[in-house]
Structures are given as C-alpha cells and as structure tokens.
C-alpha cells in the first residue's frame, strides 16, 4: 500500500497528537497552523522574539507538549506555520476535500496559494470564546476571557488591576489563575449558573470522570490558586451591564435565576478597570461545514468512535467535537491521526477509551454550565448585537418579527447582522437565538451561521494568481522550525 498522506489543520493539543499518531502509523503528514508556533490556545507560547527562559510558566502538561511538538521535526512531517486554510473544495467523490492554503498569516498580503490533495484530512481547529451581548459589552476594557488569558500567556500583558471575570464554565478558573499569575488584580469570579445546576449537570461521581481525562489535578490546582490569591468566587451571579465613559469603569452585577433572569433588586455596581467574559465556546465550524461534515444537535462536529466525520476521509479531533479540555483533545487527536493514517484499531484502544470518556465529560460539562435562556432580557433596545455592522437588538427583533421574513438569511440581509468582517463568528449563535425567540420558535437552524465557504479572507490579487499543487514534502515558506 502506498504511503498515506495526512493533512492536519491546527497544531493545538489535538492536532499535534494527530500528527504524532499518524507519523507513528507510517503516514507522511503536513501540519497547517495559522499561528507562528504550535500549541494552540492551551499551550499558547510566548513569541520566539521574547526568548523566554521559562516558557513553561503558566503552562500545564508541558513535558508531554514538548515531546509532541517534536513530531513536527520528524522527517516525514512537514510543518506549515503561519499558513491559512482559506477553502476546502469537495472535488472527488469518496475522497477528502482539497485543502486550499494561503502561505502567510491571516492578515498577510501577497500570499501564494497552494493546494494539498491528502488521502485523509484531520480537522483540529478548536474553539473561540462565546460572548453574549449585554449593554456596554463593546466598551474598551471588556475582553473575552480567552483573549485576556492569551494576552497573559502569550504576551505577559496584564489587562487590569481591578478585573472581574464573569460568565459560565470551568474556564473561568484557569483564566483567573493565568491573570493572577501574570500580576493582574482579580476582584471576583462570577459563575452565572447556580450550584444546583452545576451539580445536577455533573451527575454522580464527577471527580472520577474528571480524573479519567486528566483534569482533576488541574482543577484542584485552580481551586488552590483561588484560595491562595483570595479571589472571591460566586455562583448564580452575572455581569449584566458594563458602564464607562469611553472605557469600562464599572460593572453591574446581579443575582440571577437558573434561567439567568435577573432577580429584581439584586443589582449592585462595582468599580473595575477591566471585565473578562466567557459564556462557553463556539467551535470553529467553517472548515467542517465546507468539508460537508454533519453536526450534532449541540452544534459540534459529529464523529464516530474512530473520530471519523460523516464526510469521507475527514476526521475531527479536539474541541470542535465538544468541550472536554486538552487531555481529551489529545486522546481524540491520537485516535484521529492513527485512523487517518490507516492504522489498525487494536493499537489505539486506550486512546479510544480516553476519547470516549472525554466525550462523556464534554456532555456533563455542557449540562453543568448551560447558557440560561433569559439572557436576552439583559439587552436594551439600543444594545448592539452585531458589532461589525452595529445591528441593534431592536432592529433584529423588528426584522425577525415580520411575518414574511422567516428566512434567517432574509433577516441577516435586512439587518446586516453577521455580514461584517467577522462573518458572524461572534454573533452568529446570538442572532440565531434572538431571532428564534422573537418568533417563539424552539428549534432554529444552527448550521447556516457557520457556512463560510471562504473560511478566511483572501485578497483579490491572491485569488487571481494561480495556485501551486503542493507535494507532501513541500515546505512553502522555509520557516525555521522551533526545536
């Protein structure tokens, strides 16, 4: 049998594990990553220019990561950092899509186009923060928790001295930890869900499950960190408004019901210089959608126990299949890479078990930290929902309420919500939920907001230039690999 060529998109924990497994199964591998360095969000590294002597500060599982990223130096592995997949083209029936790559960073110019035709494609593109809109959310000084953590981990930049972290999910804790480690002052961490909701979601023996996917120690460490830094952690509380003149100066905190309705009279204000919000994560679905992969009811990529997607030759791993943390992502990546390379099932049964446990963990996590349905009540008429196009809540409700404008596309065209430069990555889910609520529909279609056939912006000059077919060992930009 000819050597299989595997393309891996994304060099976070899942993508690196996939590359490592595919190499050990005998495939040639190309790893495509938009950042300069491997690691993804979890192992976000300082830029090489910083020449950090202790790059592992603020990092977990650093040794395993160090080993895994050595896969990129393997003679059968081609490492394409700062490369952007702008399109996937479903060409041959039964084959994975062609991978159309721009050789250069996301905002580069004059980037040559290259096309890969792999035998199998592993998508490990991860997630970005989901942030619900609320009055004042567009003020400077309001960060996504992920961005604040990235600044701390990736630049050692501290977002403020009086920071509130709010939203839902266990990610609030590592963000608080990263921020305090980097020297920020964290006033409070607010989890909007109540203890009852969280406990019910975790069901029985949650710690055992966490231990299975390697998260228990990390969680325990965060809790210890919280205690050490005396950061107050409150549940059933939410930031429902940010205020300030040109910059966030105070936040309005309220106690909320299990559905996140504000308990009248519970509002109080707190002076801050930064606010970090996180309401879970949105998977980066444009590439899976372009490849023709089916999604689950919860809006993640559907995979079988071999991490196979519904589209032929396409595998998915990591958080695009569900949020379960880095160790689960590694297990999924191992399984995906191994099967993408045509490996025999027996060799990865342990990783397969870990991946299955990870999926169970993801389901519990999602149940424990749901998004309350009453959050749109926090909005005012003039609250901006789509920041690119400045579509207000009132405009959206008005458009969605027109009896002849049932089509979500017609609502978007009428309000321009989601049509701006971010292409609905920030507001897509929000707009869908507000539209459905305005019509009192329970099940709004989920897939449409993620349809972005052009997955990343491409300049007209780049598009007009002919593309080169890239072989498995082509190193387009000859960048020096990190060793």
């Amino acid at each position, binding site marked *: 049998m000819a050597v299989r060529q595997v393309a891996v998109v994304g060099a976070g924990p899942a993508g690196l594990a996939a590359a490592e497994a595919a190499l050990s199964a005998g495939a040639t591998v190309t790893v495509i990553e938009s950042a300069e360095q491997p690691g993804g969000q979890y192992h976000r590294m300082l830029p090489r220019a910083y020449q950090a002597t202790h790059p592992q500060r603020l990092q977990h599982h650093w040794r395993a990561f160090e080993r895994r990223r050595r896969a990129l130096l393997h003679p059968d592995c081609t490492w394409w950092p700062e490369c952007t997949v702008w399109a996937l083209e479903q060409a041959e029936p039964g084959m994975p899509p062609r991978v159309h790559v721009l050789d250069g960073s996301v905002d580069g110019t004059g980037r040559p186009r290259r096309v890969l035709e792999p035998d199998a494609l592993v998508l490990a593109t991860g997630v970005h923060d989901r942030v619900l809109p609320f009055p004042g959310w567009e003020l400077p000084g309001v960060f996504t928790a992920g961005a604040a953590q990235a600044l701390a981990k990736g630049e050692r930049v501290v977002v403020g001295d009086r920071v509130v972290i709010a939203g839902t999910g266990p990610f609030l804790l590592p963000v608080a930890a990263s921020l305090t480690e980097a020297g920020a002052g964290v006033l409070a961490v607010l989890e909007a869900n109540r203890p009852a909701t969280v406990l019910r979601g975790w069901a029985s023996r949650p710690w055992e499950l966490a231990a299975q996917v390697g998260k228990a120690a990390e969680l325990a460490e965060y809790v210890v960190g919280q205690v050490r830094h005396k950061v107050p952690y409150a549940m059933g509380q939410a930031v429902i408004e940010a205020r300030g003149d040109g910059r966030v100066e105070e936040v309005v905190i309220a106690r909320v019901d299990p559905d996140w309705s504000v308990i009248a009279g519970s509002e109080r204000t707190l002076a801050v210089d930064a606010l970090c919000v996180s309401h879970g994560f949105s998977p980066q679905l444009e590439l899976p959608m372009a490849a023709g992969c089916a999604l689950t009811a919860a809006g993640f990529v559907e995979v079988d126990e071999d991490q196979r997607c519904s589209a032929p030759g396409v595998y998915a791993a990591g958080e695009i299949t569900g949020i379960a943390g880095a160790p689960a992502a590694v297990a999924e990546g191992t399984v995906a890479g191994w099967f993408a390379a045509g490996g025999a099932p027996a060799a990865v049964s342990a990783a397969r078990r870990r991946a299955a446990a990870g999926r169970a963990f993801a389901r519990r996590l999602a149940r424990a930290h749901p998004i309350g349905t009453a959050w749109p009540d926090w909005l005012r008429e003039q609250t901006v929902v789509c920041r690119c196009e400045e579509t207000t809540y009132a405009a959206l409700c008005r458009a969605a309420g*027109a009896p002849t404008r*049932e089509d979500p596309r*017609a609502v978007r065209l009428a309000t321009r919500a989601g*049509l701006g430069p971010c292409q609905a990555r920030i507001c897509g889910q929000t707009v869908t939920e507000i539209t459905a609520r305005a019509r009192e529909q329970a099940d709004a279609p989920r897939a449409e907001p993620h349809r972005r056939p052009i997955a990343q912006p491409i300049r007209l*000059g780049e598009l007009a230039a002919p593309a080169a077919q890239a072989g498995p060992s082509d190193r387009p930009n000859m960048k020096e690999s990190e060793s």
Partner: protein
Amino acid sequence: MYGTRVVVLGAGIVGAACARELAEAGLEVTVIERDRPAGGTTSHGEGNVLVSDKGPGPELALTLLSMRLWPQVLAALADRGAADTAAVEWDPKGGIVVATTEDGAAELDRFAAAQRAAGVLVERLDSAALAAAEPRLTREVTAAFHYSGDAQVQPAGAATALLSAAVAAGATVRTGCEVLGGTVRGGRLIGVRTSAGAQDADIVVNATGPWSGDVSARIGAPIAVRPRRGEVLVTTPMPPTVFHKVYGADYIAAVGSGSAALQTSAVVESTRAGTILLGSSRRQVGFDDRLRPHVLSAIAVKALRLFPCLADTAVMRCYGGFRPYVDDHLPVMGPDPRLPGLWHATGHEGAGIGLSVGTARLLRQLVLGETPDIDTTAFRVDRPAVLGASNATTTHKERGLA
C-alpha cells in the same frame, strides 16, 4: 374573477410580485413556499435591475415595462410604511459598460446604437467623463457607455416588501410546504398536493425559478427550465471606490451564451454597506452548490482587469445561487396549453429581480383576460425551448453581442 382561487408556487421575488398583483386584483391568493420567503435564488444574487444588458427584442420590452412600473411599485410600498420601502434599498446608481479591446469597442458601439433606437437611455462616455464617473477604474478602456436606467435593490428586502403587500391585500402565505403533485380532474388542474395537505385552486402559478422544471414535472407538465449556477464575491467594507454598476462588455455575451461550460465576466459594484460585490460566473452543473476555487479565481482575474486597485482588497465571503435558465434566454409566462389551470411565471435567468414587476403585471392581465401592456407571444409556454429537450436545440435568441 372575484372568488377565483389562485395558488402561487414559490415566494421568491417573482412569486411575491405575482401574488401582490393578483391579490390586489381581488383574487383569492395563497402562496406556497417549500422553504421560506426569499430564501432561494432571490437572496443569492446581486439585486440587478438592469436595462444595459438587454438587446432589442421582447426581453427589452419587458425590461422597459418593468422600469416604468418600479417607481409606481415603490410609491405603493411607501404608502404602506417606511420600513418596507427602506428594506428595498432602491438605488438608481446607473450602469457603466466598458470594452477593453478595439473589437469589443466596435461591438459595444453597435449594441448601444441598437438599444438607443429601441428607446434605451444610453450615453457614450469619453475618457474624461469616465474618469470623473469612476475614478478608480482602469484607464485601459476602449469604449464606455453609461446607462442611467440601471438600478439595484436589496433583493430579499424587495421580495419581502412585495410579499407583505400581497398579504395586506388578502393573500395567504404557507411556508415550509412543498408541492408533491397536481390534482387533475377532467383534464384540468384543480389543485396541488403538498407536504402539508391538499390545496384547491382554479389557477396554479408556477413561480419556482430554477426549480420550475422539477415542480412542473411533479404536476405532470414539465417545462425545460434548468439551473445555471452563479457566484458572487463580497469584499470587506471599504471607503467609496465603485460608484456605478460597472461591467465588461463580455458580460452581455456570457449572459446570452448557451454553453454549459464556465463563463466569467467582470461585474463590479458596491453596496450601501460599503462592501463591493464581484461577479459573475455562469455554469450548468445542476444544483451542485459546492465551492469551486477556480471559478472564484476566474472572477477575481476579470474584476482586477477593470479595477486593478482592488488587488489587496480582502474577499470576506462568497455566495452562489441558481438562475432559472431557458435555452432561448427568454422568460416563460402564461398558461400551459397542455394542462388547463396551470400557469408559469419563471425562466428569467439572472434578470428576475428587475423583471419581476413587469412579469407580474402581464400575468395579471393575461389571467384577467385583459390586453397585456406588451406583446407576450415570445414568452408563451408553447415554444420549443420550453416544452421539451427534443425541440430545444433549434432556437437561440439573437442577441446584440452574442
């Protein structure tokens, strides 16, 4: 005709316009839409209301009728409320057609002269006037003509406004309701069977655009309307750069071509939101909507030939749709001679947005037995290009530049 029950199939712009005309004429109108209003071809184009690409002939006559009607329609919508009119985003920006070769210039000259003789407002621009009108356009232009009649709408907004007007006039809209077949009694169509039950009708109007062929086959009287794929690139919002609808003369030949293979030509215009729309492509690939980078690349090549200054402009999305294509490039409207009770209003290819209001007016006049404003013989259902592939190879419409 009061009490006549009309079922309009399709809530795209043509169906919406027909529903409005027929409901305002007092007929009992039900619109049946498989998916949702304006969710198909209508919302997947640029919103063209063009006279510039039409050579003398019946389609130009329909265009000129539509051009006369649009201001009346907009005024009527305005009477209903400001929101509807605003949603239409009517923009009489005018079109500029340019040739970049000497041969192209000569052909464009002849084409424009013939249009002028047929009543089209068209004005030749010298290089100074062109530079004033489109300062960022390439200077490598051999001829340029300005068409003050060309306009653009936000097509989903226009269709929605027309449909709302139909509802206000008494029409009913049933969405998520797919036509499964026709109910025929005594050789006459007396209703349709749908995924949501039966719907009686004295008249059924097939306005399902590129799906008209399939829908008519389900009803038992197939017509040869096929999908022709097109793609549009959308740039990130930018400062004003393109002020008219600007397109290359080869667009007219591509529109008139009968080839199934890829045709591309440059069509460049901006929208109110600041984005620039870049077209166009034509392919016959059935309903295959998969992304084809080589098609997008071909569009980019042609667009840059007209506007080299856009080379570093980022394309942030693309969309594509299916035009309802007929071999002789003429719309289909009127009764189906094979099945009394069945009517068609379809086959406008890429011109359905602009031609919707004229088509609806003519359909109303035909249904009511009035003399239509223009001769509709060329659009009749009973012609070889419509009634079957066996007859469809003979006639190709004569077009100015084709």
